[in-house]
């Protein structure tokens, strides 16, 4: 297995008094596409927010290229090359489409992504660049959210439920863009409710259940039975 880009070691995470993750271990290899599946409340979003620095943890619990980052703030983590496409898109309503993309690029990392290359990936956004981000359709907003994350030229990109609430035809469009994103050697983590979709685009898969890893497998040789057992905790 190639060098891990991210290593998570016995991660506990809390929302107030509620514990969302219990001693979670997880490894992401450089250049892979990793899928994370699990029921609502399994801790998927908490895991991504912890990696991105929106939830602070102990430094050693999350290591990025060997460096402890668990205790860093989100803006510091962003500067290291980790970008999150948040659940529900969460564009900045006061900013136009173009400004949303520009602000994604303000971490100032060098790399292939710029306004031009993002518009190349999602041509519709070029036409809509001066519109308010709230005036776009859900699918277009998701394209902006993805473009905004790409503008940071991340080495590791985290997608949280990018198909949530979108029509199947739009989901297909979004996923069709994925090879253009990860083809350049970017490592990706995809949190997804649609298990078939998750397995088809990833090389490895983790399943979470109630804050713990219930399954870790290569995506192409995992059976439906194993997944439903890991997903629901019943055999």
């Amino acid at each position, binding site marked *: 297995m190639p060098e891990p880009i991210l290593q998570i070691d016995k991660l506990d995470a809390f929302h107030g008094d509620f514990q969302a993750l219990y001693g979670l271990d997880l490894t992401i290899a450089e250049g892979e596409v990793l899928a994370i599946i699990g029921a609502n409340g399994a801790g998927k979003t908490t895991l991504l927010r912890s990696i991105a620095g929106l939830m602070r943890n102990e430094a050693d619990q999350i290591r990025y290229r060997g460096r402890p980052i668990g205790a860093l703030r989100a803006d510091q983590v962003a500067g290291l090359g980790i970008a999150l496409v948040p659940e529900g898109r969460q564009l*900045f309503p006061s900013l136009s489409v173009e400004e949303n993309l520009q602000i994604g690029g303000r971490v100032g990392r060098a790399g292939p992504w710029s306004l031009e290359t993002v518009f190349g990936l999602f041509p519709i956004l070029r036409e809509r660049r001066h519109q308010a981000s709230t005036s776009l359709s859900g699918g277009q907003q998701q394209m902006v959210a993805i473009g905004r994350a790409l503008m940071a030229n991340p080495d590791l990109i985290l997608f949280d439920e990018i198909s949530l609430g979108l029509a199947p035809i739009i989901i297909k469009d979004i996923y069709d863009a994925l090879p253009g994103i990860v083809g350049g050697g970017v490592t990706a983590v995809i949190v997804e409710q649609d298990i078939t979709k998750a397995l088809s685009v990833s090389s490895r898969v983790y399943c979470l259940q109630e804050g713990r890893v219930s399954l870790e497998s290569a995506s192409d040789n995992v059976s439906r039975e194993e997944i439903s057992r890991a997903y629901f905790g019943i055999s």
Partner: protein
Amino acid sequence: MEWLNAVVQGVLLGGLYALFAAGLSLIFGVMRLVNIAHGDLIVLAAYLGLSTSMALGLHPLLSLVLVVPVMAAIGYALQRGVLNRTLGEDVLPPLLVTFGLSVILQNALLEIYTADPQKLSAEVMETASFSVGGLTLGVLPVLTFVVAVAAIGALQWIFYHTPLGRAFRAVSDNQDIAQLMGLNKAHVFGLAMALALAVTAVAGIFLGIRTSFDPSIGGGRLIFGFEAVIIGGLGSLWGTLAGGVILGVAQTVGAKIDPGWQILSGHIVFLLILAVRPNGLLPKVSG
């Protein structure tokens, strides 16, 4: 003609109120912070102008070259050192802390400068005037108004046409997601307060040239500033200018009816507008 004169003088007075209010408007717009000490910070700027122009023998307007950066630095330090710690889900801590700050500022100014009224002397500029179409306009009120429009215009430009303004708007929209873009919100808030107090410095100097001041007058300036912000609509900078002008006109027209009604009529117009349009004239942010 006398009524027209009252209206025009009120518009010009509104420029000063807009300067009082611009910093409040900006701070509320970016971080939903209501700064109770804002009026005392205006007075602090006036005293800084007094000390600078006395010590260096400068015209008070020239003292802005020093007072503006000093107030901006105070703003940044205040935000990062104190106010950032009060921001969160609960709206009460920032109110209490800035109220405490207001008390501290007033007493510190009293200790240093005593309660004697002071004034910034701008010499001939204070009384110079010119005539336009039968109206006599003071040079100082006209200059104040022009500076207020320029200051609001500059803030507006910063807000909508610079990367800094983009950062302000992004942090205002969603602090978590803005952090994901590499924005350190503590720093962005510090910059917003620095900018707000830079404008406050200008407000303080023009206040000090226009009228005499003592350490206790901050509260009154805060009320005028608040009223201008609320009339204009929360978070809208041009709205704040409009709010200042409406308040100024209400006061001068009220004073024309009866000199005792000046302040009262301003408050009445404020309450009327609040009753008819609770969100102000040009609201930008809700709640």
